[in-house]
Structures are given as structure tokens and as C-alpha cells.
């Protein structure tokens, strides 16, 4: 039983290591930001997930303490990683992307990130002439 557990844990750890590494390799190997964005999800899901499950098993079987913290971390990562990816994608689109490169939304409205942009943007404060008289305390 213990041997089996050892094998399972080891496999989990090795797989986790490989997938984690693949994520980071992807980060440097893939050609542009959007494709690179796919990398951390890998590291998150199987990489960290594998380590966390391995850890749970390890403490359960070898230390006889069932640690649920790992589960909590896994849940948290699964909950937040899509948000992070979404935000990074949006930031990338906003800063470097063009709406014309994207497919049509197939609705009345454009992609949310690009919707509000037209209105603004001038340099900070250069247009503001300082008021003639600085107020003093007296």
C-alpha cells in the first residue's frame, strides 16, 4: 500500500514538474503575448494541482494527517486563474491589440475592452494653467 502510494505520489510529482516546466517553457518559447498567455494555465492546473494533490496524499499516508489546505489552495487557484488570464488578455488587447484584428462579436455591440476608448485621452495636466493666485494660510 505504502509502495503504491509512493509510486502515485512520485508520478504526480514528476508529472507536475513536467507540466509546470512546460508552462514556463511556453512563456519563453511561444511567439506572442496571447499565445504565451496559455502557459500559466498549464502550470496552474496540472503543475500546481499535481503538487498539491501529491502533498495531500503524502501527509495523509505518511504523516497520518489529512491536510485539506491543499484543496483550498487548489480551489482558489482554479477560481482565480481564469480571471487573471482574462485580465491579462484584456490588458494586452487594450494596449497592443486592434479591434479590427478580432472576429466580429456577432451582436450589436463591440468587444467590451474596446467600447469606451474613443472618447478620451490627453496628457496629464499640461492643459491646466495653474490658478493665478496660490491660496495661502493667511
Amino acid at each position, binding site marked *: 500500500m505504502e509502495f503504491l502510494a509512493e509510486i502515485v*505520489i512520485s508520478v504526480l510529482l514528476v508529472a507536475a514538474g513536467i507540466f509546470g516546466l512546460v508552462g514556463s517553457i511556453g512563456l519563453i518559447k511561444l511567439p506572442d503575448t496571447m499565445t504565451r498567455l496559455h502557459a500559466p494555465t498549464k502550470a496552474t492546473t496540472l503543475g500546481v494541482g499535481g503538487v498539491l494533490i501529491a502533498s495531500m496524499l503524502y501527509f495523509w499516508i505518511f504523516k497520518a494527517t489529512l491536510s485539506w489546505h491543499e484543496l483550498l489552495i487548489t480551489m482558489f487557484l482554479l477560481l482565480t486563474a481564469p480571471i487573471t488570464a482574462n485580465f491579462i488578455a484584456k490588458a494586452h488587447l487594450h494596449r497592443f491589440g486592434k479591434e479590427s484584428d478580432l472576429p466580429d462579436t456577432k451582436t450589436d455591440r463591440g468587444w467590451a475592452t474596446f467600447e469606451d476608448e474613443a472618447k478620451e485621452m490627453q496628457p496629464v495636466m499640461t492643459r491646466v494653467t495653474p490658478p493665478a493666485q496660490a491660496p495661502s494660510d493667511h
Partner: protein
Amino acid sequence: MIHYALIFAFGCFGLGLLFNLYRIFVAPGVVDRVLALDTMVINIIALLVLYGISTHSGVYFEAALLFAMTGFVSTVAYCKFILRGDIIE
């Protein structure tokens, strides 16, 4: 056996960190660096949990949990800044 698997995993995530460092140094823009930072947090969480296994200690899980939380919050904050300027509006 677990020992060697641990070393292997350590090596993988450590190497991953190094790659992240490369992305911090060389990147077309700040978004990639935010991405690198986010990946780094994930690698570090993995390393922390591995460290917990190798020292048979549960003390580091809180750190891992908090790293996950703060990593998430700061990534969102950086992106929100890029998107809107004001991160709390």
C-alpha cells in the same frame, strides 16, 4: 523514490523560475512581465508545497495560500491599471 521525484519537481519548477526571470528581463511590454510575475507566483506556490513535503511541515501552506491571494490581487491590479488607469473606480 519520493525523494527523487521531489528533486525532479524542484528542478522543474526552479528551472521554470529561471525562465520567468528571462521573461522579466526580455519582454515586448509590461503585459508580458505581468504574465511572467503571475507565472512566477504559481511556480513559487508549487515550490512552497514541495518544500513543505520535503520538510514534512505544514507551516508553509498559509504562505502558499496567501501568495495565491496576493498574486491574484496584484495581477488584477496591474492589469486594471493598464486598462483603466484607476484600479479602484
